[in-house]
């Protein structure tokens, strides 16, 4: 019955569930709110499963397409569809939403319904971003998803949450306004269409491409975030509650990277080639500079936030290698980072719930009190350091190999992550987990409970499965990426 509208379900089921959760009202009904939220998140994940089972990996055409007129006066459509690039991201998002709901189960005691609703609504909106094939529809989802996130940081955040929420909101809004201008320009150039796939074939002069390149780069670069527009991320992470950090790192950053593949590369191929050096330079700075900055962080969340920026540098670097190995490496890195950063922020959340500190110096000797947790944390730390057989290795490996082919020195700088990534992750791990207990409060910390084991265990399976057998992921992506790259190789100059 819903066979024709899976993508609509994927978008609207979480949003409607979120509204239903809101309807439970005050914290007197918190338990009900939690259960409705969990049911909604699970249902949202279940309705996304047909996207995998029914996916045709042999075609690069859009699948599960839905199209209806929305604002006929401006030729705006409710147009949805996915390919091998966007489908895995929708799955990742729906999956992470379930974990986030479970992760906030006991921790959030204040405004429970609103908290859960914000995550569910955001999940639906983000699915909309990945599924939208109409520029305006994309823009609406793209901006809309900021609102729940803004609220999550601003309401359930730490002491400096207002500064962080404002910074985050203004930073990202600034970028996307220029993008709107570009979209309007594209509307006129394409003869009155907001269809993204039409834009892919629209002829554009070099000046127009260059200007639009920078406007899109700002919009998506802020989200990724790329150096030097990254400084909102550590602040937002530090202030956000655990669930907010998880979604922020695992999903929101991917929206920015996704924009590169859906807009910048196919719409502006000439500018992309011409200015690839610029993106590559920023990406490499992100890897090396941010890696060093991460090394000196005293706050675990800030450390992982900086680590995220460095890892996302691999994504943008991979895209601009213009080869299947590089682009798919970037995509794999996005999915993997979704698992690994989510897991690491959840690990920090586990510690924070017990000790109410994110400072590395307050910990030490955790393994004596929480051996099971220490084992999970070790796995995710190693994944963050890009150890083979974990998902963290796959993307980095692919991008480094792709970079070697383009220019040895690109690979040289990128490969410093082998040293820096291990240094900042394992040095933190050593100070937090190993050694003797020095803080008497650590003495009282209890090991992970069943709920936490469930969440971390599921992520551990994902991290290992993707590391040992990434073929299913690249199989889904490959045809779409090859088609995209063929498209990017063609000039669109008039």
């Amino acid at each position, binding site marked *: 019955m819903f066979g024709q509208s899976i993508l609509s379900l994927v978008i609207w089921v979480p949003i409607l569930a979120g509204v239903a959760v809101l309807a439970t009202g005050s914290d007197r009904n918190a338990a009900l709110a939690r259960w409705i939220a969990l049911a909604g998140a699970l249902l949202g994940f279940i309705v996304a499963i047909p996207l995998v089972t029914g996916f045709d990996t042999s075609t690069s055409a859009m699948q599960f397409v839905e199209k209806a007129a929305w604002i006929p006066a401006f030729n705006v459509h409710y147009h949805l569809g996915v390919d091998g690039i966007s489908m895995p991201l929708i799955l990742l998002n729906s999956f992470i939403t379930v974990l986030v709901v479970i992760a906030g189960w006991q921790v959030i005691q204040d405004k429970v319904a609103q908290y859960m609703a914000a995550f569910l609504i955001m999940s639906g909106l983000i699915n909309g971003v990945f599924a939208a094939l109409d520029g305006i529809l994309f823009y609406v989802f793209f901006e809309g998803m900021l609102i729940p996130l803004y609220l999550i940081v601003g309401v359930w955040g730490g002491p400096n949450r207002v500064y962080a929420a404002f910074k985050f909101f203004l930073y990202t809004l600034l970028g996307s306004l220029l993008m709107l201008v570009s979209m309007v320009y594209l509307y006129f150039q394409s003869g009155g269409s907001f269809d993204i796939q039409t834009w892919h074939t629209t002829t554009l002069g070099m000046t127009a491409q260059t200007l639009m390149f920078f406007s899109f780069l700002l919009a998506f670069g802020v989200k990724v975030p790329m150096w030097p527009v990254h400084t909102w991320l550590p602040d937002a992470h530090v202030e956000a509650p655990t669930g907010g950090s998880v979604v922020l790192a695992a999903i929101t950053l991917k929206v920015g990277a996704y924009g590169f593949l859906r807009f910048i590369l196919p719409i502006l191929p000439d500018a992309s080639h011409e200015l690839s050096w610029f993106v590559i330079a920023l990406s490499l700075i992100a890897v090396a500079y941010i890696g060093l900055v991460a090394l000196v962080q005293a706050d675990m969340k800030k450390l992982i936030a900086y680590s995220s920026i460095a890892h996302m540098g691999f994504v943008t670097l991979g895209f601009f290698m213009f080869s299947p190995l590089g682009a798919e490496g970037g995509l794999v890195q996005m999915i993997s980072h979704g698992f690994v950063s989510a897991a690491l922020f959840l690990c920090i959340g586990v510690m924070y719930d017990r000790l109410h500190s994110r400072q590395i110096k307050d910990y030490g000797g955790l393994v004596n009190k929480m051996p099971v947790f220490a084992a999970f944390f070790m796995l995710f730390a190693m994944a963050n350091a890009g150890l083979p057989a974990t998902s963290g290795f796959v993307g980095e490996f692919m991008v480094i190999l792709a970079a070697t082919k383009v220019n040895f020195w690109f690979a040289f700088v990128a490969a410093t992550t082998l040293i820096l990534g291990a*240094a900042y992750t394992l040095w933190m791990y050593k100070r937090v987990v190993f050694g003797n207990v020095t803080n008497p409060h650590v003495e009282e910390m209890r090991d992970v409970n069943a709920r936490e084991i469930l969440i971390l265990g599921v992520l551990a399976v994902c991290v290992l499965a993707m590391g040992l057998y990434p073929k299913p992921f690249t199989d889904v992506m490959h045809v779409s990426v090859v088609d995209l790259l063929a498209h990017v190789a063609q000039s669109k100059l008039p």
Partner: protein
Amino acid sequence: MDMQTLYLIVPLAPLFGAIVAGLFGRLVGRSGAHVVTIAGVAVSLIASWLVFQDVRAGNTYNGTVYTWMALGDLSFEVGFLIDSLTGMMMLVVTFVSLMVHIYTIGYMHDDPGYQRFFSYISLFTFSMLMLVMSNNFLQLFFGWEAVGLVSYLLIGFWYTKETAIYANLKAFLVNRVGDFGFILGIGLVLAHFGTLDYATVFARAPSFANDTIVLWPDAPWSLMTVIGILLFIGAMGKSAQFPLHVWLPDSMEGPTPISALIHAATMVTAGIFMVARMSPLFELSDVALSFIMVIGAITALFMGFLGIVQNDIKRVVAYSTLSQLGYMTVALGASAYSVAVFHLMTHAFFKALLFLAAGSVIIAMHHNQDIRYMGGLKKYMPITWITSLVGSLALIGTPFLSGFYSKETIIEAVKLSHLPVADVAYWAVLIGVFVTAFYSFRMYFLVFHGKERFHQGHAHGNEPDAHHVEHHGGTPHETPWVVTGPLLALALPSLAIGYMTIEPMLFGDYFGSAIYVADRHPVMHELNQHFHGAAAMGLHAVTTLPFWLAVAGVGLAAFFYLKRPDIPAAIAQRFRFLHQLLLNKYWFDELYSWVFAKGARLLGATLWRRGDQNVIDGFFVNGTAHLVERVSRLVKAFQSGYIYHYAFAMLIGVFALVTWFARLN
């Protein structure tokens, strides 16, 4: 059972043991953990033996287990290459691993992390087997990093010990420096060869012999030189070659069984194995081979010197390992790959033996590792004593023992090598013989002979167990059979394996096509002409310089440490700087700590404070906000709401406009 199933059993049996002991350790209990892991490794050893027989019969295998990832034509696979080189490595790894597993029952007897330890060493065995059995660079890197991970976990096994968790982080990071080069080398292989499959790459290699790569303008490098050096940097990390050697001595903070298995017999030889495996690539670049030889010679000689001044029994053996790895590396540089691998094998037996014997001594000394507080243990620990003597004699190259054949051949190979650096390397390995004999027997005499000094010992245990203090004062006694059994089992090959295998391995057709040597590097061929059988080689040894150097080393050690212990002390006094230089390991640790560890943190802090906080946030982000605020405050002042202000402003405006128009006219 077909061979493919057998190949799979070899690595999977230890993996199974590791999973059971690791995840269900509490369920299976202590004895369950050692039974399942030992059974896993034993099965693996038997399967390796069967594979070895099959290889001996002339069968090789090169096939895929599963496709890890595929991007159109480009596919990355997990697969096995089984040939004579692999077969030998599989036997060495599983045999030493089995001995170490059994030994661990005794050594870790009282440790609360018993199951975890067995899980780790079985996981290590799995990883090492995947490394040696690989048929492509991807899986090689997998195994490479996986053994590094287990090494990290095991060095830091006693996780509350500050020195151990410092050492394991150091080991991992220094190895990562090597991997940095390694992955770039693999990247260049893929970029130019279009595949990571060994067989294809090796087959195509000759056609790339004269290719160049431009790394910076106007300076083309030979592609094979760059690939060779980058891959070798990986080997330098894993096999602890100068200047990436600093992690290995510190790795002794881990329990002794893993020092034997990982940091002597198997993992640290992965770099040697890798270069031998890649002989078709390395043979194409004399520059890369010279580089390898120089690094090996430096390591062989200068790390040996450090063994002379160490007082920790394990650290003496560790520096000896570094030095011996240097010998293997020199052999690789001389294109004597089979000799390097031969020394790898003999060294695996006698060095594992020496480490396990050291562990046996450590148990008897209640975890005091300082050889100044031992002495005279010969009569209390007969088995440990005799096996240690065998190991030491094998190490210094006593004729007819295993180490003799491999080390003697390395020295000869370097002598015959035509590389321009071979002369220097020859002297390095020659002097190294004397140094090796001296430090080995310094330790041997201090531990097993002379005055009994263990009652003067300070209770400075290496291991955090509590049981070292209360036993102090009793007489030392021999360790249980689970400890001495493996010692005896390793002593046999330490005695005989060289004599038995030198002919087929070096001068027969054992390696066949597994190792490739170019015609312009005829070292093995020339060696063959001088070789007249293992027995003749042993007899001939007494007329050669290395033999007498070794004798001199042993003699000097005996004189210094049995007859006149005042002389070494006087020498240390007289040559204070030299003594300090050696004691402080040439100050490499301090140098690296200052330049890299502190330097990176300083750079990171500067980038963070200046770059992120001052410039980006301070100037641009918050600066923009402040600018907006200031402008709006300024503009706000004009919106005063008083009519006469606006009227006045209007008047001025009209006046200005009129003036302007008037001027235009």
